[in-house]
């Protein structure tokens, strides 16, 4: 029944995807790191590492690990607080070129990783003679695949979005890693109840739309990161000349988040309705308040809240972005916690 060779090849492809994403992550980290030394003459800066580290800590600590990492990484190159180092034009140019190259490398390895990712799923499908979304390993690969695909589309349409890669690729890589370790299940056929076209419609729609919505949440996180940076600049805690951010302007990030949300939301709505149609033929009722259904409804309601917040005075910007992040949290909660901890009718995870 199961073709062991294809199944093995699929596992190899998975490793390829994982490797691609990890390298992409490293590139993004380097890209982030490079931003803090943009206007520095490296020679003058090397002296004063000891002073500049506390300076960064005093600035309040970056919200994301990647930021923090990059602060440390670049600390050796930074100038002491208040020391006016005139920017050397050569260094500036070199930095821009470096950023361009490392950014491009990040995109290329992401694309390669994505190709492996898709291949892993396709091979799984051929190995088991069924569509590759029958258990949690495959399902998680579907969602993360959709998120990466959306990310690549965002990159393709908005080149300026590249530096937010650290926000996007960190959680996605973690999820892919979890899929390959905690959730991994051998290739196997599915139980007969899953053997229907409604499964295909519902599961594909849910996982793809969740991936798109996930990207919306990640863009909102980047948006908040940028707002925080701007606030610190405004408060004088950061000197933008010395530690610039490469993150796109807040408004642009917000728009990416919004675009992804309005692309994902109707799709997600459709996916839930397709699930209801399937439930009507499989479980005896189109809506059973099964835990999975309830949490999906909660996610849906949260995203409706996000769209509302964007149209309500006083809720735009920061509060709306937080709502979008809460939405992301509910989707991940539904994916992991509800599948693994709570047993409902959706317990097809294949983990037990």
């Amino acid at each position: 029944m199961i073709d062991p060779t294809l199944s093995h090849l699929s596992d190899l492809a998975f490793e390829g995807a994982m490797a691609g994403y990890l390298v992409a992550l490293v590139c993004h980290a380097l890209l982030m790191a490079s931003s803090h030394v943009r206007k520095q003459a490296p020679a003058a800066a090397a002296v004063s590492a000891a002073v500049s580290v506390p300076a960064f800590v005093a600035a309040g600590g970056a919200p994301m690990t990647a930021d923090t990492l990059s602060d440390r990484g670049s600390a050796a190159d930074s100038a002491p607080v208040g020391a006016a180092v005139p920017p050397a034009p050569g260094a500036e140019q070199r930095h821009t070129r470096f950023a361009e190259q490392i950014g491009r490398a990040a995109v290329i390895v992401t694309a390669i990783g994505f190709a492996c990712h898709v291949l892993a799923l396709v091979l799984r499908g051929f190995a088991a003679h069924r569509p590759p979304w029958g258990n949690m390993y495959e399902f998680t690969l579907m969602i993360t695949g959709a998120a990466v695909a959306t990310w690549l589309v965002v990159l393709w349409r908005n080149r300026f979005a590249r530096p937010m890669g650290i926000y996007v690729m960190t959680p996605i890589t973690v999820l892919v890693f979890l899929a390959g370790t905690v959730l991994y299940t051998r290739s196997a056929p599915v139980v007969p109840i899953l053997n229907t076209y409604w499964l295909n419609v519902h599961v594909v729609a849910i996982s793809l739309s969740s991936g798109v919505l996930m990207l919306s949440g990640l863009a909102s996180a980047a948006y908040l990161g940028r707002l925080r940076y701007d606030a610190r600049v405004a408060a004088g805690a950061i000197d933008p000349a010395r530690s610039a951010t490469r993150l796109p302007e807040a408004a642009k990030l917000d728009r990416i988040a919004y675009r992804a949300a309005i692309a994902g939301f109707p799709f997600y709505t459709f996916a839930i309705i397709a699930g209801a149609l399937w439930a009507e033929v499989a479980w005896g009722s189109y809506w059973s308040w099964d835990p999975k259904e309830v949490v999906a409804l909660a996610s849906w309601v949260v995203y409706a809240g996000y769209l509302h917040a964007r149209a309500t005075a006083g809720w735009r910007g920061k509060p709306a972005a937080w709502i979008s992040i809460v939405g992301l949290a509910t989707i991940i909660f539904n994916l992991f916690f509800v599948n693994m901890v709570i047993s409902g009718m959706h317990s097809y995870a294949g983990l037990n």
Partner: protein
Amino acid sequence: MTATATSVIRQVVWLGRALWRQLTSMRTALILLFLLAIASLPSALLPQWYLNQTKTATYIKDHPWLGPILDRLGFFDVIASPWYSAIYLLLAISLVGCVTPRTIELVKQWRAKPGRAPRNLSRLPHHAVVTTPDDPAECAERIRNALRHKGFGGWRTVVRAEDDGAVTVSAERGYLREVGNLVFHVSVLGLLLTMAIGSLFGYTGSILVTEGDGFCSSAPVAYDNFAPGRMVDGTDMAPFCIQVQKFEAAYDANGMAKFYRAQLGVQSGAAVRSDRYTEHMLNINDPLRIAGQRLYLLGHGYVPEFTVRFPNGDVRTYSAPFDPQDAMFTSQGVVKITDPPGYSGDAARKNQLAIVGIFAPSGLVTDGILTSAYPEMLAPAVAIQVYRGDLGLDQGQPQSIFAIDTRQVDKGLLVSQGRKNLNLGQSMTLPDGTVITFTGAKNYVSLQTSYDPVQGFALLFGILLVGGILTSLTIKRRRVWYRITSAADGGPRLSTGSRVDIGGLARTDEAGYGAEFGSLVSLAGTPAMTPESAGEPAPLTEEVPRSEKERVT
């Protein structure tokens, strides 16, 4: 007296209005949406009565302090709890309150013409100046025609002449966006309603039927479990009868089911209780639909059979459905013998028998433990323990059909008579000479009847919901104005033709208007090379327009 009365009335009216305005504001909707999301979570985190009674009861027992309080507050039946209902009721009211005025507003807008051009078009987020050899009236007509016919669909235009001789064209599109949005909100309301009505007037009933047997759905008692909506009293259920003629299943080498199905004889309408049956193959994922009711095949299992020879010489056959525990159908259950022959009155109750144990369709004993190696009946076997005594069935508490009440054992009212593993045809003899023979097993199917009088509407609203949200999120509201002034008073460097000032405004989501505005500009004429041509006619890159920036940050 009357004065205070009127003032009280006025105050009540004022308060009512204020409350209503508060309840139907976007902000309240937002908060209610959030409350709904948060209130849903306990039903995913805590066990729920309607999903799993045993688990819920265990949970409450394990949390002796918190459990009963949460139970009292409805946390184990969230969806039916008053607070959950209150939230979605408020949301429904809020929806009505917000949809009604917006519908009226939309109808008004539909009738109205696009608004007058603002005095200073260069202050709009999108602005451009072009020149054209046409005179203002011609140019206006040309723009109007182009907007109407040339692939710029959906624009509504009006041409106006201004006092100083300038001609303006006002155009607006994207009215459908609001329509889609309203359809969406009305559908949300409709879905809330259909779900409520469905749960009030619908019901579900479940039953296990052994191959060869049947059942008629004429009354709630026909079911093992019957869950009626609040408005269902079970008196006017449209009856149907079924006979499970044959059960079929096929498995692959690993024991994974390829399919299972039941061959039914069905009677409905006038045929009920006659001897005419219609054949129907009942498959999973494919319910049988009979007069608004739906019959589902939800699962299956085995009914082991035992022949019991009692000491008084009576021989009887007993059987009961066993509950599958794993994919290979290692099943657990009990055959309860409540009326042992040879005893009467109280003695009969004290000599009831229970054959408790495991059934395996393809038995495999490892370390003395029986499990099944394959779901099909290749080598049926049981591992049984027999109890004699009072099963405790007449104490008014419902018992599981798959287990005995172990408290009876703890109390010493049920006493073990020994245990044994039996293959097909083997027997076990009890101390009193009763002989229990394992004679085989049949299949049972677990069936469910569902009834929901309004689920068709739910589907309709579901479709409208998706259609509405797609329309409202893809269609953009755009406005554009052209002010055409003749060259004479238009600009210093023009001697013939007209100068066209163009301003664009996106009423929702600016993104993407840049490029479109470019094409709106080029249908008016060619970019003017005048120094005051402030706007870039066709910005190819999407810059963030002023208003969006303001909105966002």
